[in-house]
């Protein structure tokens, strides 16, 4: 059993993860403490993505509980969540509004320029390259100012510099007391990583 | 747990249902076939002909039961959809999947027999009145349910979509009846009315009753049979299905 801590950000107990009505994981437990980085590993079809969708509340658990303790979270899935017709700025603003946060225009611009997307501010996302779209999706992590990050295969179609940026962002997020759960098959290689291998459990 | 919830849960348990329903299917088939044969022969050969409509009225012995039953099946599907929506009971979805086809066929047959009956009786096969129109829309709704269920193979999603459509549809049918009633008073003289004999002689009524019972029983048997098949198909990976397959 995982120890229950008053400062725990995210507490999962006894969760059953099912895919196509068949249980893939039973009695899954996890707790995310401030500063924790948890990597979920496993081959294709082992339920990494599905587990993350449960954590984000996109799928509702029929058995077990997921307790976010009313912490804010940011979820970046395999789909970008960005509309192709809207500009990078509009998309980011919508994502913050959607998470019930009022991020100012200056802050959003700062986030965009930090990811090298300043020049794309007024370009529709549909005209950006795959890597730029991916960065724009990751930009929402900073824009949302969330305590918990849930990332699904964040390294996909990122170049070296963007990967470095992401590692730096996760490190500083942890330093400021946030937690992250990352589903990935290639490790990020950051210190103090907790690994959960779905194939073993 | 009281007796009701206990039966509810037991019926929701697939192996229990699969084994328990077998006897029911046989009995319903027997009752259904016997009553249908008795009722039909009685209706065709022994019941007297109608004073106004002559022998063509004998179509009533098939038309009325099928029309009623098709509506009943639609309502039952909507109720099952509601049960699925609220309690996510998988057997409710199994029922819907097993009953839609039969419902669609019965509706189609009710329309067909109505048309054939209408030609000699009112001189026209089709009248856009409340009853025929709502039965036609009901057929479309059945076809929609079937099309939707085949288009979404994912069973949880397909089940929910079908449940929602069934409920929206069942609310729509009475509204359609009322609006057609109101609408047609504008256009059509009241001279044509679907034959609903006000006072029907008992000698004519008995075969109708027997046929109705037979059809209901047979339909219940067929639906139960399909439910057994669907339960088996869905639980194909579980232990009890292996036992059954091995024993066959």
């Amino acid at each position, binding site marked *: 059993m995982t120890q229950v801590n008053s400062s725990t950000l995210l507490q999962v107990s006894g969760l059953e993860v099912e895919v196509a009505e068949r249980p893939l994981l039973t009695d899954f437990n996890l707790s995310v403490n401030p500063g924790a980085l948890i990597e979920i590993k496993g081959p294709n079809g082992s339920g990494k993505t599905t587990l993350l969708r449960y954590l984000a509340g996109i799928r509702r658990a029929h058995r077990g509980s997921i307790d976010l303790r009313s912490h804010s979270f940011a979820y970046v899935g395999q789909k970008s969540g960005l509309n192709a017709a809207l500009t990078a700025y509009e998309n980011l603003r919508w994502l913050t509004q959607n998470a019930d946060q009022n991020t100012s225009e200056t802050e959003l611009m700062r986030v965009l320029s930090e990811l090298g997307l300043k020049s794309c501010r007024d370009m529709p996302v549909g005209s950006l390259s795959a890597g730029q779209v991916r960065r724009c999706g990751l930009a929402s992590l900073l824009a949302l100012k969330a305590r918990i990050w849930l990332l699904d295969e964040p390294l996909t179609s990122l170049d070296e510099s963007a990967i470095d940026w992401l590692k730096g962002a996760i490190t500083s997020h942890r330093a400021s007391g946030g937690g992250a759960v990352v589903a990935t098959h290639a490790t990020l290689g950051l210190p103090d990583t907790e690994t959960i291998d779905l194939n073993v459990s | 747990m009281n007796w009701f919830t206990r039966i509810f849960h037991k019926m929701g348990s697939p192996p229990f249902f699969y084994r328990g329903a077998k006897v029911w299917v046989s009995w319903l088939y027997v009752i259904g076939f016997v009553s249908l044969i008795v009722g039909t022969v009685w209706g*065709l050969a022994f019941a007297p002909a109608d004073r106004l409509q002559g022998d063509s009225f004998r179509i009533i012995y098939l038309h009325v039961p099928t029309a009623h039953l098709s509506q009943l099946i639609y309502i039952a599907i909507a109720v099952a959809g509601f049960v699925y929506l609220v309690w996510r009971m998988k057997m409710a979805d199994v029922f819907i999947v097993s009953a839609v086809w039969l419902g669609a066929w019965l509706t189609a*047959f009710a329309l067909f*027999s109505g048309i054939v*009956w209408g030609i*000699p009786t009112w001189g026209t096969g089709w009248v856009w009145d409340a009853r025929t129109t709502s039965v036609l829309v009901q057929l479309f709704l059945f076809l929609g349910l079937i099309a939707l269920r085949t288009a979404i193979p994912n069973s949880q999603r397909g089940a929910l979509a079908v449940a929602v459509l069934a409920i929206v549809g069942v609310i729509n049918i009475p509204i359609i009846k009322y609006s057609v009633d109101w609408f047609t008073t504008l256009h059509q003289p009241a001279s044509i009315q679907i034959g609903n004999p006000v006072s029907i002689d008992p000698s004519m009524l008995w075969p109708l009753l027997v046929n109705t019972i037979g059809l209901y029983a*047979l339909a219940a048997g067929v639906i139960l*049979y399909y439910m*057994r*098949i669907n339960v*088996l198909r869905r639980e194909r990976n579980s232990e009890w299905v292996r036992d059954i397959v091995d024993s066959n």
Partner: protein
Amino acid sequence: MMEWLEMGGYAAYVWPVFGIALIFVIVVALTPRFQHKRLIEALRIELEIESEN
């Protein structure tokens, strides 16, 4: 007998309806039986292949 078959002149309406109903009832009542058999057979083959592995 012939008189009965003529149905008072409505034979062309009554008999087709009853004939189609007969076919309909037989088809509807028997299909689940075939489907059930076919499904059990398919499941048996599935099991066999599984046990070979």
